């Protein structure tokens, strides 16, 4: 698995959890959940940012995600009541959306790379074949 995939997947899961928690819990509990999720997103994205090979598009997404994560931490401690609930919803939706974009971009780049390496492989061959070809070519090692 690549660092792009792992970090985007983590952010997607964490943001989806916050999104669900927005409707499941009240403001006092949501405050600390938002604080935790925001902090974790910042940590994970900052850690993943240190890896080579993420590409400019993903790095742009990383910066925006880190900013939203940081803002989530600040807003969770600064606001209360319905403002907090709505902000948590928006922040979670934004983080989930960006993570989804990151995952799609990652997949598109991987597939495009395989296709460009051997156009015959991608459309015709099965998923397993594609993976084995990538491994054979060392394409899967981009992110390391």
């Amino acid at each position, binding site marked *: 698995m690549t660092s792009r995939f792992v970090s985007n997947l983590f952010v997607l899961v964490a943001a989806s959890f916050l999104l669900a928690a927005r409707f499941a819990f009240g403001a006092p509990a949501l405050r600390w959940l938002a604080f935790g999720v925001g902090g974790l997103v910042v940590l994970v994205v900052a850690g993943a940012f*240190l890896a080579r090979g993420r590409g400019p598009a993903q790095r742009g997404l990383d910066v925006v995600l880190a900013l939203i994560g940081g803002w989530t931490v600040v807003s969770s401690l600064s606001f209360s009541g319905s403002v907090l609930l709505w902000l948590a919803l928006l922040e979670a939706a934004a983080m989930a959306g960006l993570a989804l974009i990151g995952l799609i971009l990652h997949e598109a780049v991987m597939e495009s790379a395989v296709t*460009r390496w051997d156009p015959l492989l991608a459309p015709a061959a099965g998923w397993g074949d594609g993976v084995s070809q990538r491994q054979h070519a*060392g394409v899967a090692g981009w992110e390391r």
Partner: protein
Amino acid sequence: MRFRGPLADSYLGAVALVVFALIPYLALTSAITPLDPILAKDLGLSKQALQLTTGLANAAYAFGTVLAVQFAVHLRGRRMLILYATLFVIGSIVAAWAPTSGLFIAGRVLQGMCTSLMLIAAVPPLVIGWPASKMPWTGATMNMCVFGAVALGPVIGGVQAGAAAWRPLFWIIAGTGAVALLFAVLTFEDVGPQDHSAPWDWVAIVLAGGGCAAAFFGSAQLQTHSLTSLIVLAPLLVGVAMVVTLVIYQYTVRRPLMPVRQLSTTFPVAGIVVAMSAGAASVAVIELVQTALAAKDPTHTAMLFWPQFGGALVTAALFGALFRTRFIPVLVLCGTVLLSGGAAVLVGVASGPQMLVLVGSGLVGLGVGASVSPALFMAGFSVRSAQIQRVFALIELLRGVAAFMVAPILLHLALTVGATPAAGISTAMWVSLGIAAGGGALSLYIVLLGRARLQRPDLERWEGGDEPAWESPPLAAGIRGEATAPRLVREIG
């Protein structure tokens, strides 16, 4: 025959000059808060006017760093140092005598400006003008002057406030300034200007002067206005924008006054981030504690700050001991951790036991002592020693702006945000903790992004003037030149 002072070859004389030149004003910056009620009563100044006076004096301090570099380029440095010391003595006498509030304000502003002028004129020669074997002592002395004085300020101010007088302290400061002037004469050795052919950088001077004045004016208005009112927000934003523009301008211009481009590498940027964040957090923490304990006996409160000074002494000695080792960046990082710990302990200062102040101020003393001045050298070691004057000027400008602008904002936050003053002070202390910890984390992150490794500073090579003391990798060197998918595919194909 040219005059040459009898102590021109004395290292101790040069050290004494720096100590007596820097300590008075820097100690006063943290000593003045307990004296505010006495000053207000004696001079007929409102709280707002006092805040503005302090703000303008701090703005003059920050601006003076840039002015000093410009003067050093075109004018004879040691002669100017005597002029700065003389003006400092005059400003101090005017402030101490102060028959009117106007003269007090003028004296304070002159004190602030002359201190930074003396800092930039006197400190770099002390650092690089003596054999490398003296540098650890110089580092420890710098640490004591830059932060030790600030750490001692609350003790001095509290004791003076306990005596219900302010003029004796100001006369002592004038006397200390006179001693600095004496040492400036005794160690005098005429040197020519650095570079007559260099242009006068009026853009930089206007941006620095205007930016500092506007930003500090705005933050000083917080005493009587809300953060969102026009008289606060507009100058604050304009001031910050001008200082940011100054940095960008210095990065792009062909012959800059301050070597921003050369400092745009891993270690200097990490050092500047720590100097700014630790400076801002520490000044805010000290002022918040003083505000929280304002109702108590000032002399008793002053005694609670002794551990802070003790911490500054310990870290000054530690910095001297580690000066030649690879652990300076580690010391800087530990400093931010200790400072954050101090702020965490002091969160309950307004309602908790006074033991919190003893422990918290000790941690703050250790933390700031280990971070600010070592961070200054962390940046300085990354460029040629000939640039050290300009490096110190830039960092002191940014540290001064951060430290003296953030503190009034947090103080305002403390007095307005909570249901009670204790709750407000607690919240503002958390923000200070966030600034210190965030700065430390960001600095560590910058080092990780640059894949920088710890190195021993080669002081002898640095002293030679042509090379830095250590190699600082370009910013984000660790993730630069990364392989992209198309490129890899081309390579594979």
